[in-house]
Every structure is written in structure tokens, then in C-alpha cells.
């Protein structure tokens, strides 16, 4: 099992593993593609000599918290969607269905690692300790980003697809330099992207640079099957994981709805990267159960049957089955988790409705790090112009 799952940079082995000579297949989503899966839909755990040791090291509390994290971020996702429907957010980017891929990978990261997300990594944000209400500032339109990324080593959401994959590589190159200079402990970056973004040139260039400089970066692709309305088959004719061989670094396909497998595989990849062996590509096989954003309507482009099939693979359900089978969790635990989620939802709602944008003056700040005459002139004019609407008491009309 291990040698099938384990990545290789040897073309012969890769071809043998994929059962063809040229790496070309008519089945883009070939279910035959090897995939690390440890926890079945029925909630049964299988052993893998490479990855199971990472799970053996988990305490019961940690196992339980994997579930509570997934449930909590799903509850958050529902609340944010509701806030959008109620007009409190301009738009929301739901992530329901991808909890396993996000919590599993995020929990594998250490505080010194640096995360470069897309705009859907709410679950990863939770694992980094970010106050999730801050994610909504951008979607309420009061800020282009809502937090100081340095506090949690969690970069702001990047809306230009794939641009952040290069930032992750450059940052990782800097980390490696700092380690070599004795200035920092070994750490790695994780570059998140999706199946749609995999077609962007920046993903290609980021992998070329990462390989050339053996940068400590883990490329984490959540293949959720849909780039808004376009299916994965239009992005690639072969599983994305196979690309890693072309760049000369390991690639691992993992069941993205199996939070334990994702955790173990990401641990392996991060250790590989931190130890100076270079980048790793992980393709997490998952599914976006909701819309791309609240502005979109999936019924126009995909069958309900496909969604229903993926609901059976729900990452929460299978972990719940496993935890119950071990006797680690009972109804009381799940009720408590649900209450924690409701509490977060209430916090987020309360925070959002107080987020306002009163003073456009702040929008002139930080355009440049140092004084700039044009910005200063326009800012001064804008202040005077707005002030000209004030009444005799100085209250703006």
C-alpha cells in the first residue's frame, strides 16, 4: 500500500503505478488513481505503514477536536451564508463539504509555518486561531483584508487566482535562507489552490521555482470538482497529482473528505519540506457541496445526483461514526459541539453588524509606506469636500 501511495520522482515508477507508458488517459477523474484513504465512509479506520503513525500520536482529545473544528467551521459557514442572504454581507464563499481537507491540513501545520490561502480556507483560518469574524470584513466591504497576517501566519485571502502560490514559494525561499543563516527554525509554507486555479500559469511557475530552489513549500490543491460552473475535466485530462512527477517532486492524492488521512499526509509533506527535501504536491479529492459564491446557482450546471453522492462521503459523518465506535463521543459531546458552533455564530453575527465604514479617509492611508504628494493632496481635498457638507453645528448632512 505504501509504495503505491508514496510519491516518486522516478518516471518509470510513476508510469508503472499508473499503468500506462505515456501518462495519458481517457479517464481524467480515474477512480483508479491511487489515493490515500484511511477512514472509510462507514467510519472504519485502516492502517497504512507510512501514514498511520501520524494518527497513532494523536490523543483522544485531539481526535475529538478534529470533529469539533469541522463542525464549528460548518456552522460558521452557514451563519455567513445567512448573513449574506439577510443583506449583511455583499457576498459569501461557502466551503461546506471541504471541512476534512481544510481542518486536516491546517491542523498539520505548526505556528511557525506560513499559510497562503485562496479565498475559501475558512477552516484553515480556524485552525490558525484567527477570529473568524475578521474573515467577513472583506465580504462586508469594509476592508480589503481584515487581519494582520503576521499574528497567525495566515496570509490574507487572494482573489486573483493562483497569485499566492508564487508568494508561498518566495516566502519559503526566504525561510530556507533564514534557516541556513541560523536566524530561524525550520518551517514551511502551504500554498492552497483549487482545481480551477491549477490551470493558471502562476501555479506552473510556482512549481518550477519551488523545484529549482528546493523550497520548503507544500502545494495543497483542493480539487472540489467545480471552478464555478466548469467541471474539473475541462481543467485537466489527468489527475493533478501526476503533475508533481513532471516537476521532480513528490505528489500524493488523498481523500479530502477523510480528515485523518489529510492530516497524516500533510504532516508527512510538511516534514519533508521542513527537512530541506523540497516541495510536495497534495491533491485532496473533495467536493464543494454549495455554490461557488452566494452569487451563483449550481442547479444551472450540475446534477443534484452528483451532490447527493458526495453528501454520502461527508467528512463529518464518517468521523462521527468512528468516534462513536471507539466510545470517545456520545450524544452529549455532539450537543456540546453544536452549542460551541452556535456560540461562534452568535459572536460572528454580533461582530458583523457593528462593522461599519464611516471614514473614507482611512482608504488613503497605507497606499504607500512613505509620504506621497498626490495621495496627500487628494486626501486633503476629499476631507475638505466632505466637510463642506457639514451644517453650522459641524454635523455632516
Amino acid at each position, binding site marked *: 500500500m505504501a509504495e503505491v501511495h508514496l510519491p516518486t520522482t522516478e518516471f518509470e515508477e510513476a508510469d508503472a503505478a499508473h499503468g500506462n507508458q505515456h501518462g495519458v488517459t481517457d479517464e481524467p477523474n480515474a477512480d483508479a488513481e491511487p489515493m490515500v484513504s484511511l477512514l472509510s465512509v462507514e467510519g472504519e479506520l485502516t492502517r497504512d505503514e507510512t501514514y498511520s503513525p501520524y494518527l497513532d500520536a494523536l490523543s483522544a482529545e485531539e481526535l475529538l477536536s478534529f470533529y469539533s473544528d469541522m463542525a464549528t467551521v460548518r456552522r460558521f459557514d452557514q451563519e455567513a451564508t445567512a448573513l449574506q442572504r439577510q443583506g449583511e454581507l455583499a457576498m459569501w464563499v461557502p466551503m461546506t463539504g471541504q471541512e476534512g481537507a481544510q481542518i486536516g491540513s491546517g491542523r498539520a501545520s505548526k505556528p511557525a509555518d506560513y499559510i497562503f490561502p485562496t479565498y475559501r480556507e475558512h477552516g484553515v483560518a480556524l485552525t490558525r486561531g484567527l477570529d473568524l469574524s475578521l474573515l467577513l470584513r472583506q465580504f462586508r466591504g469594509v*476592508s*480589503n*483584508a481584515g487581519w*494582520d*497576517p*503576521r499574528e497567525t501566519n495566515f496570509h*490574507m485571502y487572494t482573489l*486573483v487566482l493562483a*497569485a499566492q*502560490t*508564487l*508568494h*508561498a*514559494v*518566495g*516566502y*519559503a*525561499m*526566504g*525561510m530556507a*535562507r*533564514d534557516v*541556513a543563516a541560523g536566524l530561524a527554525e525550520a518551517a514551511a*509554507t502551504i500554498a492552497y489552490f483549487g482545481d480551477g486555479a491549477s490551470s493558471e*500559469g*502562476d501555479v506552473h*511557475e*510556482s512549481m*518550477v*521555482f519551488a523545484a*529549482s530552489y528546493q523550497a520548503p513549500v507544500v502545494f495543497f490543491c483542493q480539487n472540489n470538482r467545480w471552478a464555478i460552473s466548469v467541471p474539473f475535466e475541462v481543467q485537466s485530462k489527468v489527475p493533478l497529482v501526476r503533475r508533481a512527477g513532471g516537476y521532480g517532486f513528490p505528489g500524493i492524492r488523498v481523500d479530502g473528505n477523510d480528515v485523518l488521512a489529510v492530516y497524516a499526509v500533510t504532516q508527512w509533506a510538511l516534514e519533508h519540506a521542513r527537512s530541506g527535501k523540497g516541495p510536495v504536491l497534495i491533491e485532496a479529492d473533495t467536493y464543494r457541496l454549495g455554490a461557488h459564491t452566494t452569487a451563483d446557482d449550481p442547479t444551472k450546471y450540475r446534477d443534484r445526483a452528483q451532490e447527493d453522492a458526495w453528501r454520502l462521503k461527508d467528512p463529518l459523518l464518517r468521523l462521527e461514526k468512528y468516534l462513536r465506535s471507539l466510545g470517545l463521543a456520545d450524544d452529549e459531546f455532539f450537543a456540546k459541539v453544536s452549542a460551541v458552533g452556535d456560540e461562534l455564530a452568535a459572536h460572528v453575527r454580533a461582530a458583523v453588524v457593528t462593522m461599519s465604514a464611516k471614514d473614507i479617509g482611512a482608504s488613503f*492611508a*497605507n*497606499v*504607500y*509606506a*512613505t509620504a*506621497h*504628494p*498626490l*495621495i496627500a493632496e487628494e486626501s486633503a481635498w476629499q476631507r475638505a469636500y466632505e466637510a463642506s457638507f457639514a451644517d453650522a453645528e459641524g454635523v455632516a448632512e
Partner: protein
Amino acid sequence: MTVMTFGRAINAGLRKAMDQDPKVVLMGEDIGKLGGVFRITDGLQKDFGAHRVIDTPLAESGIMGTAVGLAYRGYRPVVEIQFDGFIYPAFDQIVCQVAKLHYRTQGNVKMPITIRVPFGGGIGSPEHHSESPEAYFTHTSGLRVVSVSNPQDAYTMIQQAIASDDPVLYFEPKRRYHTKGEVDEAADLSQAPAVGAASVVTQGSDVTLVTYGPLVSTARDVAIAASDDGVSVEVIDLRSLSPIDFEPLEASVRKTGRLVITHEAAQFGGLGAEIAASITERCFNYLEAAPVRVTGFDIPYPPSKFESHHLPDLDRIMDGIDRAMGRPNSLSALEGK
């Protein structure tokens, strides 16, 4: 004072910046052993090592995007774009990321990236090697854009650009790389003219001639030729294209009442348009004539055998001066004068 070529002055400035700050790293295509296609980084990899002078894969967006990551981590990347016409694959990273990250992070993450761009024509190159793309970048908030015209400025301003906490595009007039000039390498950087300051290079009283980069030396020649015609030309080297230091321009135009702007880039939507509009707004009552632009044509850069007809030269700029002065000029016949 040392006499050195323009190219050598940039090299010396890079060397000094690297000496002073270990976080300064150079990135680009062929900049290591080869020293770049124009040899601007000649010898730097040998002296500072391959980890400070990085030969990158051949991918401009990749260079710029990884430079963003390095800057994020606390480094000061100096990126060489091999030729002006090759900057476009990096355009998204420059405009959407380099320019905006300081703003998006509310000042928490700085982007001290210097982007060196050999630009302009006049060296007989094939297409895509002679372009003047500066207006794309002056139109983008968050970027600073400079262009140097002489070895001393080249030496000083590359160091100022690297020291800046803002991203700076540094446009190098490639056809002037071999021009020699005096450079004071011992000069105190803190005493040097501000990077954003325009400078009056030739004083005059009849017409203000504004330019930058490769055409500054042409403009000096114009001033000499015009004085033989009895016209006193004040030449201003912008040095900084964004922001523009308008004060010396205004002071000059209030004195001369006439404005000519010249650049190699196309006319429509270019720097000349911005300067003409701004000076008209600021000095309308002082203007004796409409501002005149003398620029490259609004065509793709032509095959190099035609470039001498495309680029503003002494005669074309003299014609622009004649227009501003109301003397017989290329438009006289058309205007029935």
C-alpha cells in the same frame, strides 16, 4: 569623483546596496555568471554568491511573485526584467500584488521591491526589445516609478530605490548604458537629492522642455541648438515619473509661459498628457501657448530600421519648440500659416 559608464554606475550602486544590507538579493534571468544581457550585474554573483545574485527560471511572473514572497519574509529583492517588452507576463503580479499588498495589509506588510527595467529604443533590436511601458505603471497606485538619465543619478537612485519601503520601478535607458560621466561614490546618500525630485538641467527663459531617461541628453543638445536660433530653453529632467515633482515644472512654466514635453513612449494616455493637463490646470494664466507633446507615434514599435523616424530626435524636438514659440513649423502648412 570617478568617471564611469552609466551601466557601471548601476553596477556600483547595486554593489554598495548589497554591501550595506545582507537582505538585498538580486533576481533575474542570466544575471549571475553572465552578468545580465547588458552586463549590469557583472561580477556581483562572483563576489556575493549565488544565493545573493539568483539566476532564476525563465518566467517573469514567477520572478515577480517569488520576489513578493521574499519581500514578505523581510528581504529586499531587486528584480531585473531583461527587456521592457518582457515585463508583461509579470504585469498581474506587479499591479495586483506588488502595488497593493501594503495597502491590503493596512501597512503590516511592506513590499520593498526594486524592479529594474532596461527600456526605450535606439539600439537596433528586434521587436519587443525597445518599448517604453512606463505609463502602464505610473497609472497604478502603490508603485513608485523613476527613470534615470545620467551615471550619477543611476548610481544614487538605484540605492535610494532599494532603500525605499515602497516598490520602485527603475527604468534604465538602455541606449545610454555606455555614456560616461562623473560619479561621486563617496557621496552621502542622505545628502543626495530626494528620489522624487525633478531637476533643472539647463536653465532658460523662453520655453520649458520636460523629459526623462534617454531623451535628457537629447534635450540638452536641443537647448544648445535652440540658443543658436535665439531661443532660450529650460530643460527639466523629471527623474521621478510617479509621483511627479510639479513644483519646479510650475516655477519654470510661470517664467517661460511655454511647455514642451518629450518622451519615446506613445502620445495617447502617456506621461506627456498627464503633464500637459496638470500644468495647464496649475499655470493656465501663465501659458502663452498650448502645451506641445513630442513623442513616439501611436503605433507598435516599428522595425528597427525605421526607429530613427519613430523616436523623437533633436530635429523633432526643435520642431516642437517652434510650435510652442509660434514660429514656422511642421504644422504651418496644414494650418495655412
